[in-house]
Each structure stands twice: as structure tokens, then as C-alpha cells.
């Protein structure tokens, strides 16, 4: 069946069966590989995209339910990686393997759009649905705070002047 989707500001028509999860339409039909498959059952949130600005598990959304609102994937967050969340992630060097990070980044972007100055508890609430098999949670939390500061126009953050761990 034919479905019309708006992904990262662009209109696409795709011909797939209606129960195809949005995740697999993005990855294998539109070739947007940034969105990741981890579990397929809503446990890991590696597949998080924005649907109408809200973070959703694209593995659980059949394509027929994704036609009504614009979709943003990690590739569409910015043209060049300049979204504050992406900048913060890079600055803090969050990833280990990196596989979960697109999902984490999408959740963080939605969080700071809603809550410009999130507390640790806000971050826990927004991101505890996201698994990181490598255990980068402490850096993710640090990076969300940093992203909020960048979005608010704080160019430098004293906490990061010398990166933790760069001891000597």
C-alpha cells in the first residue's frame, strides 16, 4: 500500500504493507540508518524518533499511524550536527559503542524543547526508557545539562573546562 510521510521536512511516498513498523520504513525504504533497531518491543528506545515533535518508539508504530504528523529522525535534527544536543554529546564524548545514542539524543532534544532547564529527576524521567548497553548514563546526564546550557546560549560551562578523567 502507498503511504505519504513527511520525514525531516521532506515528503515521501512509500509502498509497504500497512503493518510495517515506521522503524523499518525509515531504515530500509528511506535508507535513513541513524534510527536503530535494538529490541522491537518498546524496551530499549534505540528506535526513538519524533512524531509531531513527540518522542515515540518507531518499532511499535505501524506506518499507517505515522502519516498524520511530521517525523524527525536524528539525521533531521540539524543539517550539520549543530543541534545543541548533538554539540553537547560531541563535547562530552558520550558514546562508547554509540549504538543507543541516536535514540538518547532524540529523547534529550524533545526534553529540552519542553523543559529548557531540566533537573536530574527530569532527565531520569525522560531517559530511563532508553537502554545503553555500554552504560554511558552518567555522561548522557551530563550532556543533557550541557545541551540545555548551549540551547540557552551559554557558550562555556566551567564544569567542562577540563574534562573529568583528564586528571593529570
Amino acid at each position: 500500500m502507498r503511504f505519504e510521510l513527511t520525514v525531516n521536512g521532506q515528503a515521501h511516498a512509500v509502498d509497504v504493507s500497512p503493518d510495517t513498523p515506521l522503524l523499518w520504513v525509515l531504515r530500509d525504504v528511506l535508507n535513513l540508518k541513524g534510527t536503530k533497531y535494538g529490541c522491537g518491543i518498546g524496551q530499549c528506545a534505540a528506535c526513538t524518533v519524533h512524531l509531531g515533535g513527540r518522542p515515540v518508539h518507531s518499532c511499535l508504530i505501524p506506518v499507517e499511524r505515522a502519516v498524520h504528523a511530521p517525523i524527525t529522525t536524528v539525521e533531521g535534527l540539524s543539517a550539520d550536527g549543530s543541534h545543541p544536543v548533538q554539540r553537547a554529546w560531541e563535547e562530552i564524548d558520550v558514546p562508547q559503542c554509540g549504538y543507543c545514542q541516536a535514540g538518547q539524543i532524540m529523547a534529550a532534544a524533545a526534553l529540552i524543547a519542553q523543559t529548557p532547564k531540566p533537573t536530574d529527576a527530569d532527565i531520569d524521567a525522560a531517559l530511563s526508557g532508553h537502554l545503553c548497553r555500554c552504560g554511558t548514563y552518567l555522561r548522557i546526564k551530563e550532556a543533557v545539562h550541557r545541551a540545555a546550557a548551549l540551547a540557552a546560549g551559554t557558550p562555556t560551562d566551567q564544569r567542562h573546562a577540563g574534562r573529568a578523567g583528564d586528571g593529570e
Partner: protein
Amino acid sequence: MHMNRRAFLKVSSLAGGGMLLALYARPAAFAQGRPAGPPLEPDAFIRIAANGTITIMAKDPEVGQGVKTMLPMLIAEELDADWAHVAIEQTDFDDTKYAGQFAGGSTATPLNWDPMRRVGAACRQMLVAAAAARWHVPASACTTTAARVHHRASNRSIGYAELAADAAKLPVPDVQTVPLKDPKAYRIIGHTQRGCDVHAIVTGQPVFGIDMVRPGMLYAVYQKCPVFGGKVVSANVDAIRALPGVRHAFVVEGAVPAGDVVPRDPGLMPGVAIVADTWWQAQAARKKLQVTWDEGKGAAQSSEAFAQHADELSKQPPAHVLRHDGDTDAALKNAAARVEAAYSYPFIAHAPLEPQNCTAHYANGHIEIWSNSQTPGSGRTMVAKLLGIPEGNVVVHMLRAGGGFGRRLTNDYMVEAAWIARTVGVPVKLVWAREDDMTNDYYRPGGFQYLKGGVDAAGRLVAWQNHFVTWGAGDEYASAATLSPLEFPARYVPNFTLGTSLQELWLKTGALRAPGSNVNAFVIQSFLDELAHAAGKDPVDFRLALLDTAPLPDAEADRQPKSRTFDAARMRGVLELVAEKSGWRHRTKQPGRALGVAFHFSHLGYFAEVADVSVSADKRVKVHKVWVAVDIGSEIINPGAAQNMVQGAIIDGLSELMAQQITLEHGRVVQTNYDRHPLVRMSQAPIEIEAIWRKTDNPPTGLGEPALPPIIPAVCNAIFSATGTRIRTLPLVKSGYSWA
């Protein structure tokens, strides 16, 4: 790679006036070349282009351990490159140019520390020689910084790019003897460098194995028997072929291994392949798949029966005695205090977040493979054997992996993809569903350890007896199911016995991050804690006293190089450090909250950890803070990445501690996804994890694995101090605990 005595460097010119430097580890392979392959492409380690770009090749698989950044740092340091302008490229698998292209055993640092620096140093020496010749000055009068050679006396300097063409014509220095920098002069090593792929990752670029696309590619799923080793009797492949998008559906006979112990990497198992235009179509078709299986001997197994049998075995003398010092029975009888305890822990799965996958294209007796295997070389050998083609006809491209943890040390997904690719004749990407991954793992072996220990009137540990009930048949152990007779506290207790009994298992097992150690640290450091309390000693003091004991002589230990065997002084160093940093000596008694301590030596690294833990009346656990004292030698090569890795190892250990278990019923794995084999989530993670580096005058060693093992007993020991309840069974959920 250890610097092979026969290793040599080769330099070549690049078009347009650049140079490149290659280190050939295996001159024999080099001399023979590859019979039908292209001439050796000289891109082995360093490429200095005429435009000034310095490209450094990363040869090892990147699975999240940061090696793609770290190995080039070693080269760049001695080369005196300008790190900001270094490009890093992942190599293919090629054993004519590289040695040791694998990711396992936290070996990348110890194996490459010396040779990678020497490659950089040799290249720098040639560039300096080229500059010196041009200026007619002695090379010794020249210095280098940030990809430039300087002659201070005449105030001249010149960039590497301009020298590369000249340098490419010079004789290559002997890589064995080229001088290395004084570590005090390091500008790259010991300074945090960001992961080289971080920008690609945060912008969602297709860098992972699962992201691979080839023109005309189809997608595959592969259904194996839910019981390990089961064979296909029949399958409705004709009906499957008629489903939307499905191009191929066929039974694969595979080969179930013979023998009583499952081999480490048994190869292509029987199953049904479905190949479709998209992965979802292949996966959806699977729901209609009907297979009649011959489940074989695995079907009778259950976790419950294993536990019962282990208990029976524990009441008999061990089948094998691996170590026997002194007279343990007599020492136990005469001990002032005795403790007896049965410890157990489950099978668990690796579950890297990126499920297993592999892309392959077979044509005319050659196969090209894109994989994120941790052992691409073994994969290549298996594929060549399976397809009956020479290894030289198998090309393996190495892609970034979404986690390894030991899962990708084996190559089941690669042989499956290769077989399917040969059958369909076009490029094909095999992707396992999470359920395939969870139910077809090489599980961390569960186990049962029955311990007795005794202390004398002075509170010293005088007797230790362990009957380890593990897996195997006869005297052959299942993969990763062993316990070394040199494992501490062996040699530090005068009366010591280690025996094993084996029960048969028809399931794949294998190495999971810090194999052996991730369970043995739990058992050993928990039991030491029990003995410390029995002796009325402080848990740190009890351990320090043990480390002060002169070790018993041991022929096997004496045969090994000193750097590979347990060094009590180094452990003492990290234990004292972690006690100091955590305020162990000044801790106050609080109801329901306490510190716990543990240490462990593995992968040449010395780790001591303290956890600050609270436990509520309804058994809700919060780990507030963890201190990790680390001795992995003289350098922390990339400190920021090392800190990240330590934090990850702690969180990984906490996942194993709280809730992970794989159980069998009727031979089937019960847990199929993260809902029943959970990972720690952000809100459950410790609030702070502090890595404390203790640099010692030893060659640098690895970090990915050895940080993990002590956290499990450290938390268990804290739970005991906080509540008086001793944890002897993993995971904690079995005893009613949960995260706060």
C-alpha cells in the same frame, strides 16, 4: 601484535609527492603475496599526503572499547603528528599486513603499546632525516612538533607534507631499535582525545554493521531450532516463498557438532533461511513459518535439574583436583572459626544492543563480507572451510559494532550469512531479531561453588576449600567454564584445595566481558568477606593481611613472566588507595546503608572498588557512589575514554548483579528479550562513579574488562554490612531485591 622479531617496515611513494609507511608483521606472508589477489596495496599504517593530511589506519575491530581512536594515538604520538589534523581509517582484515586483528581479552593495549609507537617513531625519524638532508644539518639538531620538523639554530621549520616525497626514498630504520620518546614529552598519550567517530554517531551516519547496504541487496532472517542443536525435519518453505516480498526460503542442513561438549564456535547450525526485499518482509514471513524439528538431546535440559544435580555432585568428592596445598581438612578441623557457603550464579546473555548481523556477497568462488566480528580472522577461516574455497578468496571488511562484550568473538552470524549469500548469489544482509540474539547466545556459563574456609585464633586465613561444579564431560570443560588453579587467594593460603566436578551441557557457552572473573570475583571476594567477619577483622585489614602473606612457590606461576602473574604489592596499592578515597576508615554506621569493598586481578589489571549502598526494608537497593582504584601500568592512554569505560563496566556489573539470568525449560531459553533479561536503566545507575588512576612503573595494559568483576562482590558485601544478609546467589531478584 607483539613486535615480531621478523617484522619490518616498508616505505613507498604516493602519487603527488606523499609517503606511506607499512609495518609488515609476517614477512613470510608478504614474500608469498597472495596468489590470485591484487598486488599488496601499501596502505598499512601511515599515509602522509602531499596536501598535509596524515591518515593513520586503525587495524582492530571497534566494538565500543575505543580502540579505533587509541591505537592511532600511539602512532601519532611518536610521529609527532598534529592530532587535530589526523584522519583515522578502519582497515579491512588482512593478515599479510597486520597481526592480531581481533578484539578480546583486553589485549589491544598490551599487544600494541610497543609496536604502534615504533611505527610512528620510525616514520618520524625518516621525516627528520629528510629535513636534515635538505638543510645540510645533522638530524640530531632537529626537533619535531605538530607535524613539522624544526632546526632551531637556524630558525627553520618545514611541514611533514613537504618532506614526505623525500622521506619515501630514504632507507627505513630498524623498527626494533628506533628510539622512543621520554613519556614526559607526551602530547597525545595521556591526554583525552574524543572518539574518532563521535560526530558520525551523533549525526546518525551509517557506521555500524547493521547499516551496511550494497546495490541490489536482499535481506535475510534465519530461524534455528529453539533447542540448541536441533535439526530441521520439514518446513513449509513453499508457502513462505509465496508471501509478499519473499524471494527465497530454504532449509539449511548445517552440521550439529559431535561429541559431548559443545565446541567454542560450532559453525553453521541447521535452520531455515528466508530472504526478502526488505528485512521486515523476511521477518513478517517468519510468523507463518512452520518447522518440524528434531530437537535432539538438548530438549531434556532444565535449569532446575542442573541445580539439583549440582547439589548432588557437591556431596561427592570432586572429580578433578586442580590444586592442593597443605592439609585443608586438618586445617579446617583445627580452625578457630569456620565458614561454609554454597554460591551460585546463572547463565547470562551478552545482548549487545546491535543484534548480530552480517552482509555478504558471493560470486564466482569469491566472497566479500562486511562484518563487525571481534575475530574477523577466525570468521574468514570458518567461511572458507564452509564454502570450500581458499581463505584468500574471502575478503572481510570490518565495520563498527554496537557493542561486543565477547558476543562477537564467535562467528555464527558470519557463516550463516555466507551460506545464504552463496545460495542466493546476490548481496544479502542477515539481521537477527533480538529474540534470535537472546536465545542463540554463547552464554556466560552459570555455576555452583561450594566453599569452606577457616581462620586461626589470630584471625588469619588458614584454610580454603572450593568444590566448583561446572560444565563439561570427562576432563573437557565447556567454553569459559573453568577456574584457574592460580586464581587468588591460591598460593596465599597455606591449606588450599580446588576441585571441580562437571555436568554435561548441550548449549553454547563463551566468554562474556571479564570471563571467569565476572563470577569468580563475586564468589571469592564475597567469601573472603564472610571470613573477615568470622575472624572479627575489618574487611580491608583482613585483605591487606592476606596480601602481605608470602606466596607459596608454584612451578606454573614461576614459568610465566612476572608481569602476567598476580602481584600482591600492586593490589595492595589500589586497595589502600580506594580505602583512602572512599573514607573507608572513617565510615559511620548507618541503618540500612554501608560501604562494601572488593578487589580483583584480571587481564593484567589491578582493581579495587568500594560501593556505597543503601537497602530499604522492602529490599530496594540504591548504589549511591562507587570508587574504582585502577592500576593498569604507567599510562592511561586516553583518560576520558578510560573513565567512560570504567563507568560502563560498573553499570554493566550492576546489570549482572540485579536481574540478569538465562534459564532453560525443556531445553529452551526462557528469556527472549530485554524485558526479562534487563539492563540497568539511567534512574537505577549509581549517582557517581569515580575512577582513580594509580600509575605504576609497568607497561600499560587493558581496561575494558578488568574494571567489572569487583563491583558485584563490593555491592554484595555492602548489602551484608547494611542488613546482615549475605548474598550467595545471583541475580539479586531471586532473593526479592529490586532497584530503589
